[in-house]
């Protein structure tokens, strides 16, 4: 075996709040390989890569980089040594352009030296993902930001690129782009440490895989020696169906319409989107990054001041009395009418990262936990949150912890839990399983089915077409802000959805535009 590029020995990490995230992890990454790292939410993956990247000092243990023991003084030191990291939370500077973010770590004298744009164009070409170098990062949706972060890491020309769930917010097309880039670069000698909850990605992409469970390594083998079942078992520590092959519920024809969207338009974003969702139905929205799926959900929820059209929840028209749907009136009316909304950007839109879990969970239906609608009953808020922690398998030190102290997948579950115990009739879920581990993903999808079974109407946006087909009875394909096709889950396939989303409709396309 060749000398490892990176070697960790007996690394432990205990956070100031007492959480022991790593309990003696050893790991060797060989040069030029793609090394997979998997584990359940809260297993310690992100913590481990933060130790590797110099973000957290390890509590104990050693890190050897190219044969030399190192203690990174700061993340810059690791980067300069040839180790680039894409963190799970995509840390970019919103007020700077894409170009400047991609080359944020560059030294030299001139801010944008001659040739930088060419270098950027080159990089974009190599990745195969076009993005406007002058767009402000703050204006980009989360998927595009993820791609910028990838560009940033690739631009560093590092020997080892660490990627923490790079594809969690990407759709199939972009995911392919990332795969191709990883393969190409590893062929040229760059090593990758690749974290993902998509086991198919791990099996397809990596040469070696390490599984973490509760801060310990429970499996460390060449990928060739494992299969999905083995991985699932070591991740969760129990037997588990990877993706349940239960067919989605098809609602009765006579089931009442819960959500009726007609002629929903928004200049530059959406054009004449119409659809209905019946009680007991799960409707999926498929599309590429930036196709407008999130914008549809936001507009229905009343978070688009420029939107027009009619929206009815059980025959009650909402957002009608205003010019637009925006401000804080829109969401308030939507909540009052019985809509629940899990937005895609959980940190910016879904969570109060510094409030305790129980205050996050009770916020949307606070009045219902309160005496006279005015004085919250803390006990019942806490009880409900404890129940959510159990129901969704949230790994947390307790309900007093804040989302800031949770792992990515667990934070996502909190954003979901907020709506769980209200009496919403319509659920809008934007990437509800982003960053959620295999076990929990099955649980969440089960939960979505149960919502439908309880007679709710659910609209799901998820970039995984497989997941859409597993949970939805019907799928709308969105492209450039329009619904371009409609399929029942039974009569379509991932491949067809992909083609439709890319605008390569089969002759049989029923164009909705």
């Amino acid at each position, binding site marked *: 075996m060749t000398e490892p590029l990176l070697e960790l020995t007996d690394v432990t990490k205990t*956070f*100031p709040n007492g959480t022991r995230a790593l309990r003696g992890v050893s790991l060797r990454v060989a040069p030029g390989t793609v090394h997979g790292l998997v584990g359940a939410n809260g297993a310690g993956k992100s913590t481990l890569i*933060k130790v590797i990247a110099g*973000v*957290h*000092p390890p509590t104990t243990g050693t890190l050897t980089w190219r044969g030399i023991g190192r203690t990174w003084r700061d993340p810059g030191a690791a980067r300069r040594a040839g180790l680039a990291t894409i*963190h*799970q*939370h*995509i*840390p970019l500077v919103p007020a700077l352009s894409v170009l400047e973010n991609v080359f944020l770590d560059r030294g030299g004298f001139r801010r944008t030296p001659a040739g930088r744009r060419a270098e950027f164009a080159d990089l974009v070409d190599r990745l195969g993902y076009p993005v406007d170098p002058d767009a402000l990062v703050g204006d980009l949706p989360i998927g595009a930001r993820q791609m910028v972060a990838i560009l940033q890491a690739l631009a560093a020309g590092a020997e080892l690129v660490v990627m923490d769930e790079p594809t969690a917010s990407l759709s199939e097309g972009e995911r392919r782009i990332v795969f191709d880039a990883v393969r190409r670069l590893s062929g040229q000698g760059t090593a990758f440490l690749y974290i993902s909850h998509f086991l198919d990605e791990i099996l397809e992409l990596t040469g070696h895989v390490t599984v973490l469970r509760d801060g310990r390594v429970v499996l460390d083998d060449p990928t060739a020696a494992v299969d999905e079942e083995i991985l699932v078992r070591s991740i969760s520590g129990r037997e588990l169906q990877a993706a349940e092959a239960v067919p989605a519920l098809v609602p009765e024809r006579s089931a009442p319409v819960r959500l009726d969207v007609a002629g929903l338009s928004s200049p530059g974003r959406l054009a004449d989107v119409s659809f209905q969702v019946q009680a007991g139905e799960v409707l999926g929205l498929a599309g590429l990054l930036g196709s407008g799926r999130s914008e549809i959900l936001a507009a229905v*929820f009343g*978070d688009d001041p420029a939107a027009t059209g009619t929206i009815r929840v059980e025959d009650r028209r909402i957002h009608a009395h205003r010019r637009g749907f925006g*401000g*804080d*009136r829109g*969401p*308030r009316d*939507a*909540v*009052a009418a019985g809509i629940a*909304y899990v*937005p895609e950007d*959980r*940190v*910016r*839109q*879904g*969570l*109060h*990262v*510094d*409030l305790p879990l129980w*205050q996050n969970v009770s*916020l*949307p239906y*606070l*009045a219902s936990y*309160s005496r006279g*609608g*005015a*004085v*919250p009953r803390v006990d019942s808020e806490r009880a409900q949150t404890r129940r959510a922690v159990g129901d969704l398998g949230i790994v947390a030190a*307790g309900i*007093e912890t804040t*989302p*800031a*102290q*949770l*792992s*990515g997948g667990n*934070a996502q579950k909190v954003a979901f839990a*907020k709506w769980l115990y209200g009496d919403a009739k319509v659920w809008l879920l934007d990437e509800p399983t982003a*960053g959620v581990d295999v076990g929990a993903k099955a649980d969440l999808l089960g939960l979505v089915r149960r919502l439908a079974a309880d007679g709710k109407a659910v609209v799901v946006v998820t970039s995984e077409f497989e997941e859409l087909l597993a949970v939805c009875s019907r799928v709308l394909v969105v492209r450039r802000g329009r619904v371009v096709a409609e399929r029942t889950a039974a009569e379509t396939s991932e491949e067809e959805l992909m083609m439709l989303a890319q605008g390569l409709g089969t002759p049989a396309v029923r164009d909705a535009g």
Partner: protein
Amino acid sequence: MPAERRWPESLKLSRAGVVYALVALVAVLTVASAAQGRAPYLDPMNVSNILDQTALLGILAVSTTIVLISGNFDLSIGSVAALGAALCLSLIGPIGFWPAFGVALATGALVGLFNGVVVQFVGINAFIVTLGTMTGVRGLVLIVTDGRTVTPPTGDGANALRAIDAGRWITPNLYLVAGIALLLFAGWRLWTRRSIGVRDAALRSKAVLVPGIAGIVLVAASPVLIFTVQLTQRTTYLLVLVAVAAWVLRFTTVGRRLYATGGNPEAARLAGVAVNRYKVLAFVLNGTAAAFVGVLYSARIGSINPTGLTGYELTALAAAILGGTALFGGVGSVLKSLAGALILVTLKNGFNILNLGANWQGLIEGLVLIVAAAMYTVSTRRPTVRATTE
């Protein structure tokens, strides 16, 4: 989380640092004043004075805290207070005290509404908007007063004005009160621990015995040790306001939503919170409180000078931030802001008591401000590496 853990939690240095800073400051002043051979620093009269002097600043610190929690910023309150005072004093003659009082409060509320609407709906930075109203309203004060100090005409109106600030209330002996409180507390602990098993006996006996004995000692000593404080009416207003605000913030949906609004307005809005309303109302409250402070000021002083109450906004902000309120929303406690205000007032009072030369006061005040903030910042500090969640 068990009850016996929760109580000390809120008393931890990192949680209540400003209170410890206040205690430390008072301790230093007590020692220094004893060393100079003066009357005990904490004698009832000086305590009464400190409370009285904190009243107006404290009220503004409380309402400023609310604006800060909501995620905004208000520099206009010093000017608004002066306007409230000027309006009230100049209208007492023509329309009588109560209508004048109403006009003053309404004007304060209106300026707050203006701030709130411009900040929230036009979307201009609160700093520049309230700097604008601070300047503009001070200009209004000059116009209303024509640059002169205004005094109310003598008569019924002036009497009514004085009456809203004239009351005084002498507390019962505080040693007795504290003793009784401790005894009740011990009793409550005994009662809540009824059901706890033998293994907690030691803990239980300590948890009950310490306050119990302390209580008995205090009650027994109370005929000899006497400490009664005189509360002026404005102090009472402050205490009532603090109690109400603390209760609302901590125990009601309004409070919860206010914190949510300031902490992450976007997430709050998408959870159905009327974010704009909360933010605007915080400004309105602050304006109204400022006008009320102006009226109290004029009742205390009997007049208002056109430059009066200048700079109060910065002091109120300092009190709030010393109390741990975040500048950018979502975090703050009116009780701690009150402690912050007490630090600022105690410090100046201490200078007066110790007869410290004016030249040195600024330097010491600046240092104390930083040290007080450092005292608990250091203990609250986020781990060197900021928690990173996505």
